[in-house]
């Protein structure tokens, strides 16, 4: 710090009941939040005020002052938040995968379900990288967005956008903390429909917009996989996207092409089918009223803080109004 003090930053939001990321471009040395809804309500055990110092407190924790239950002293009751319920100091340029976690099964369900040694720390929408599997070897080294995370130790999650496969018995996965920092991103294909306007499903949340052009890379792995090699090297324009199904719809008729088939576990080493961003079809973007610069190559890395949700967490519960303030300050070593 210098004679120029970095000013604290502040804001507020209405909680939707899920964890909330706040971008704080300058970073922070402290952050505090105030749950105005709880503060204005009748006394309860819910958290009112939260504080976090990333230098002295563990990630995911924080300090809390709870409103005391009706009929009690009406004073604020301090406590330390349990791991995973407080604040996370976030730098999305960090590409280091999380710790390896054993998986004990990948199901043959239409949406493959993974049973893991633990799913603690995983949330719907996270990305995992699977490897070292026994069975389902075709998934090795590929990233997947997950959903329907259930349980803790011995819990399960789904590979939300993966095609149906034969079951696997063991393997390993790691959580991938953040996307590669540049947009738009190359993505692995898991399914392509045979249709006049093909629907393409991608293994990880894609972020594409209507009007963007993508080039297909569809290798010939075996006689049947990937099948739809007629689409290899074709450049298509996206005419629709689905964030629910993580699909893009393209202006290419695949109805007469060989069916797309994801390789099997015995298919050995292969390069995954993928789409590669290839610029913008401005005419299509204008036709659909899309920002013609939505394809722009840009660095999406952010500094900020993730507030966990819950009655005793800084992001509160659905409908809570949360005021927050963060800033930088000198650190003086008193040890």
């Amino acid at each position, binding site marked *: *710090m*210098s*004679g*120029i003090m970095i000013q604290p930053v502040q804001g507020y939001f209405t909680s939707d009941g899920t964890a909330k990321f706040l971008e704080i471009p300058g970073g922070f040395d402290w952050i505090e939040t105030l749950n105005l809804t709880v503060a204005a309500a009748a006394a309860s055990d819910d958290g009112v005020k939260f504080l976090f110092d990333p230098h002295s407190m563990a990630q995911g924790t924080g300090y809390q002052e709870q409103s005391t239950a009706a009929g009690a002293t009406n004073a604020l009751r301090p406590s330390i938040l349990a791991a995973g319920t407080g604040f996370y100091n976030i730098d999305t340029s960090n*590409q*280091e*995968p999380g710790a*390896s976690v054993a998986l004990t099964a990948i199901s043959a369900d239409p949406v493959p379900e993974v049973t893991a040694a633990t799913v603690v720390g995983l949330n719907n929408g996270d990305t995992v*990288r699977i*490897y*070292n599997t026994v069975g389902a*070897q075709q998934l*090795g*080294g590929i990233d997947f967005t997950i959903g329907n995370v259930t349980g803790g130790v011995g819990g399960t999650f789904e590979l939300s956008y993966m095609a149906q496969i034969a079951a696997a018995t063991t393997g*390993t996965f*790691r959580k991938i903390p953040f*996307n*590669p*920092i*540049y*947009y*738009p*991103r*190359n993505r692995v294909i898991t399914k392509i429909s045979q249709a006049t306007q093909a629907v393409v499903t991608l293994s990880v949340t894609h972020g594409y917009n209507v009007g963007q*052009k993508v*080039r297909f*890379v569809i290798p010939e792995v075996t006689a049947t996989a990937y099948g739809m090699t007629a689409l290899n*090297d074709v*450049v298509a324009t996206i005419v629709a996207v689905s964030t629910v199904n993580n699909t893009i719809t393209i202006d290419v008729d695949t109805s007469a092409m060989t069916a797309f088939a994801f390789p099997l576990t015995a298919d*050995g*080493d*292969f*390069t*995954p089918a*993928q789409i*590669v*961003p*290839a*610029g*913008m*079809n*401005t*005419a299509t973007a204008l036709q659909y009223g899309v920002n*013609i*610069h939505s*394809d*722009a*190559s*840009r*660095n999406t890395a952010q500094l900020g803080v993730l507030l966990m949700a819950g009655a005793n967490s800084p992001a509160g519960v659905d409908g809570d109004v949360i005021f927050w303030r963060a800033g930088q300050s000198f650190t003086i070593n008193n040890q």
Partner: protein
Amino acid sequence: MALTTINTMPPAVQEHFDKKMLAVHIPDLIYGFGVMRRDMPANAGRYARLGRLKNFPLAMIPLPTSGITPPSVSTTRTDIDVEIQFFGQWSSTNEQVVLQNENAVLNDFSNLHGISLRRTEDALIRDCIMSSAAFIRAVGGGNGDIPTEVSASDIDAVTTELIGNDAKRMFQLLHGEDRFGSAPISNAFMGLCHSNMIPSLNAMPDFTERASYPRPDMALEQTEEGSIHKVRVFVSSQGAIMPNASALGNDVYPLTIMGAEAVVAIDQDSFTSQFVYRPAYINDPLARNSTMAWVACFANAISDDEWILNLQCTI
């Protein structure tokens, strides 16, 4: 006999600090080396747009003797958009450090800021390539992983793909000369990878180390490791690594192979990289703390996705 030793009369000052600091570790910067540079004019908005037209078809049919005019042709344009973004970093130094440290603190810090600036620029280009470019897994090696270690057949697969997409090579042929152990070097694409790949590169039978070039002095930069078929390979400790991305969970090392004009870096006119020094008497009411910074515009994109491929390898 009385003897005066350093035990009875130690030096009042126990050490001499050599003011010439030891070398800072500076990675070789390879990713910005082969990119296409374009300018973004000032006062022209946030986005730079580059366009590429699709070829007209061939006209293979003779014009009719009847004099009838054949149909006209048209083309389409693909636009590549790049958002101009600003980056920077600063440090603040108390006057006591400048006054009491033996080395030239501010000089040394300005050097560190310069290194940070150029390392950042190179790493951003690297990460842009890693995020967006197509990849192919090496399969020609024998280490049992997916991908395998790099092999000549994998290199050939990539260069065949690039040439098939009309990518232009970046280096001219190096003619053979009458020198023992040397070999001519093909006109070549550029290959960029992490220095951990060096053993794998050297293990390929057809790999020609730079020392075996017809004229080793024609090797570019100290980062050029050598050449394999139609690729000249440059290495850096700041090369790309994909942690735990192989089928067995090992780190993957992408070997980026690209032709000319595959990647673009945009420079913002009227805002070149800037070094900002604010002396303490301007910066601080008590004239105690000075600041030093760099700020710059960096904007990168894959300008032709068919002219660049990441060959994913393990080691």
